[in-house]
């Protein structure tokens, strides 16, 4: 067992090989820009210096462990060098924090307050560079803010392997640029570079100037984009910073999605589809129960649905692969006996979408197929012609393919033409309005929390299913279970 001394305190090194890793794992703070746990060590920013007693100051991210070594993370020479490195960075950094999306979660800001605290000592004009370089349809690059840590470049080489980003020119003319003839549009994981950029040099076009991050808070969730089920954070406005004069949607909208680090599922990464979930969630919602296209109360719709259920002879259910573990269990417990149930894919790969790759993206574009199939089997749906009632839960079913004359009970969340074609349509809540769990394709169960208010007129599927099966039961409206 190897141990080293950090600031006089003995700590065990475990599996780690460098001083920086040991220090961070044991709660010692060492600033670092270029080092990232998932990327190769390049040691270019030179701020992670520590003092190896008797050996002098060196970078911690590339300092190998030797048994009994003594390092100081905050000695006088260490502070002096860190301060100087920050002054070197400030030399040509625009310090336009006032209009920078990264402000509030920027390493440069944090380290500046901690280790420098002075304005730039250079009295000369700063060098200028490209402000809005288009890297892709999704990302723009501000070369003035870039501190050339090369994290983004290494990401496209080592993680996403698209090899899109490179460095052009030399010295203080060096620029992050796409390789010749390439664009970051070719990289389905591109937006991760926005997260790992220690400063505000890489900017998301969809989040640009949308919100100051300190007005937002994250809710842990799970991406429903594919069977990987990456854990994510949905960023939305804090309740105490509620805007009253503007469209209410500013207060409830998911402004951005970032990865929620999870070594068992996705590490610190997610794909761009996960970033685009707000678009999926912002689709027009169905909030009105319908009977053959005519608006009815939710209670009325449930009543009618129960009648259909009692009258029908042969009944088939097409179960949603977007239902949570809880909802799927509720369905089996309450309605399992009424139906021959099949699991259906609610979503299929879209045109142009990456179907599957070696990093995260799975061909099954639904979050909970695994849990649904554990309960209802893997057989493809087979609906005999003499079926009298089909319960369709969720998206992905073309009613034209169902037997002629069959009664349709449709549970859905989105404003779609099919809603009116069903005999009964009941609006149900979406993931961001309730809590639950998904089981990914490898069997890892991840929780998600509610972060948006329940819509009026909408019911949770988990509440609905017992009501459909219990004769004489009554629906209590839209509230969560």
């Amino acid at each position: 067992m190897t141990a080293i001394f950090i600031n006089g305190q003995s700590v065990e090194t475990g599996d780690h090989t460098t001083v920086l890793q040991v220090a961070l794992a044991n709660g010692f703070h060492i600033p670092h820009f270029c080092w990232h746990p998932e990327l190769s060590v390049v040691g270019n920013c030179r701020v992670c210096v520590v003092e190896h007693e008797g050996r002098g100051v060196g970078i911690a991210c590339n300092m190998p462990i030797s048994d009994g070594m003594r390092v100081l993370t905050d000695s006088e020479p260490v502070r002096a060098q860190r301060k100087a490195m920050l002054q070197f960075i400030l030399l040509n950094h625009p310090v336009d924090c006032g209009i920078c999306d990264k402000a509030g979660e920027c390493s440069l800001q944090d380290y500046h307050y901690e280790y420098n605290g002075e304005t730039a000592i250079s009295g000369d004009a700063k060098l200028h560079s490209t402000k809005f370089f288009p890297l892709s349809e999704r990302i723009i690059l501000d070369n003035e803010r870039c501190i050339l840590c090369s994290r983004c470049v290494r990401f496209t080489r080592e993680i996403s392997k698209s090899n899109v980003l490179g460095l052009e020119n030399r010295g203080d003319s060096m620029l992050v640029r796409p390789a010749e003839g390439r664009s970051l549009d070719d990289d389905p994981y591109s937006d991760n570079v926005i997260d790992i950029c220690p400063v505000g040099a890489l900017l998301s076009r969809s989040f640009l100037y949308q919100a100051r991050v300190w007005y937002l808070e994250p809710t842990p969730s799970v991406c429903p984009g594919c069977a990987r089920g990456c854990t994510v954070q949905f960023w939305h406005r804090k309740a105490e910073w509620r805007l009253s004069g503007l469209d209410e949607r500013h207060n409830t909208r998911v402004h951005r999605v970032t990865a929620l680090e999870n070594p068992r599922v996705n590490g610190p990464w997610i794909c761009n589809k996960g970033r685009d979930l707000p678009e999926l969630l912002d689709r027009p919602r169905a909030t009105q129960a319908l009977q053959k296209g005519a608006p009815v109360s939710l209670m009325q719709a449930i009543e009618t649905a129960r009648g259909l259920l009692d009258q029908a002879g042969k009944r088939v259910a097409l179960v949603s692969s977007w239902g949570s573990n809880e909802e799927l269990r509720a369905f089996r417990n309450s309605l399992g006996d009424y139906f021959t149930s099949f699991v259906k894919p609610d979503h299929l790969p879209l045109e142009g979408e990456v179907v599957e790759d070696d990093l995260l993206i799975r061909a099954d574009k639904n979050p909970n197929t695994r849990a649904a199939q554990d309960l209802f089997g893997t057989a493809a749906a087979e609906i005999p012609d003499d079926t009298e009632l089909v319960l369709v839960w969720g998206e992905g079913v073309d009613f034209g393919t169902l037997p002629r004359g069959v009664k349709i009970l449709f549970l859905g969340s989105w404003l779609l033409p099919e809603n009116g074609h069903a005999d009964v349509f009941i609006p149900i809540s979406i993931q961001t309005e309730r809590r639950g769990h998904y089981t990914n394709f490898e069997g890892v169960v991840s929780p998600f929390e509610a972060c948006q208010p329940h819509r009026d007129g909408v019911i949770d599927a988990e509440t609905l299913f017992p009501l459909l099966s219990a004769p004489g039961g009554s629906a209590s409206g839209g509230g969560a279970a």
Partner: protein
Amino acid sequence: MTGRKVLMDFEVTPTSHSLDDYRARGGYEALEKALRTMKPREVTQEIVDSGLQGRGGAAFPAGRKWQGIDPDDGQPHYLIANADEGEPGTFKDRWVLEYTPHTLLESMLLSCYALGVRHCFVYIRGEYDLPWRRLDAAVEEAYAAGYFGENILGSDFSCDLFVFRGAGAYVCGEASSLLGSIEGTRAFPRNRPPRMTVRGLYQAPTVVNNVETLATIAWIIRNGASAFREVGTEKSPGTRLISISGHIARPGVYEVELGYSWAKFLHEDCGGVLDGRPLKAVIPGGISSQVLTGKDAKVLTAGEVEGLTLDHEKLRSAGSSLGSGGMIVIAEGTCMVRLLQIMLRFYHHESCGQCTPCREGTGWMHRIIDRIVAGDGRAEDLERLNYIAGFNDGTTICGLGDAAGYAATAMLDNFRDEFDYFIENKRSKFAGNLE
């Protein structure tokens, strides 16, 4: 004459670079001897015993570097001759490549034999045309004569050599950066650890030596380590090729026995300072070595006991080094502010841009010195230069950052009055002329 010779021990003629001429003066005998009578480790031991120090700049003991490689560890190893010769004022490897390329090739074969290397490289700067053509022709001759390829001279030893022409920057000469250049990635210097003898070219243990360092190997194997130790001084055995330029009557490449009197070298062998002007300063070994002032040099001219001799330990105690052997002579009347401007422009232009202090600091210093020369100097500029230089020294991945720092501190330490004068009077003490 500048003492005993190791490399310039023949007369340069229009054919002296050819294989026939090289063989006529004993060429490839050392290789035959080693392949017949020596084990690889014995060759390395001979180099360790010879005390040969690197000629590329840092004077690191060559034998000690080689001992970092275990020739029998079963993995591929590489040897690279560093012929990038980018250090300003340095043009001595060029002499080897042009006039006796076979000395380098024979030495590399011996080195590959010692280190268990199957494939070796010469990394030659793209700007070198004649040296490249001479080298290329020599490689062809050597292959034709069976010195490269499979089972060399009937032994078990096989070796191939590739000549790689750089098209790169000054920083490509830094040994680890050179690896990237060969591998086809960006020529960025790499952090140590790992040392290159642990993980170098294509992740395999690699030795990078300067052309002159390697070219000396053949002589050492032919004549023995003890013979080599008789040349030069106890701590600096052998000779150095010195390329001398600047304000000197007879610039060129000279082979100087280490320990040779500097005064004699400058004033007799090289004909003295141009136009008989007094000596102001000497940059002893490329601009990345610290500049020596005329004060020291004058002590030398007086020929007194404490006078400097040309060897590694004396220059180190004088706070400088023989560096890359690129000696630049500076006569009285030269504006050191303008000279520093030229040096800082170079470092700014050549910084690879990885390390924060070098990337930002070289440009920062360059812009400050430009402003001083333009007559816009400010009182705080010199302190600022010292601050920037101080934090370039020892904080970077490779030596370029350090060197840029030394350049500024050495000039400011020794010629502060000229800088003060320039800032105050908005012009050079010397009418702004470098001549």
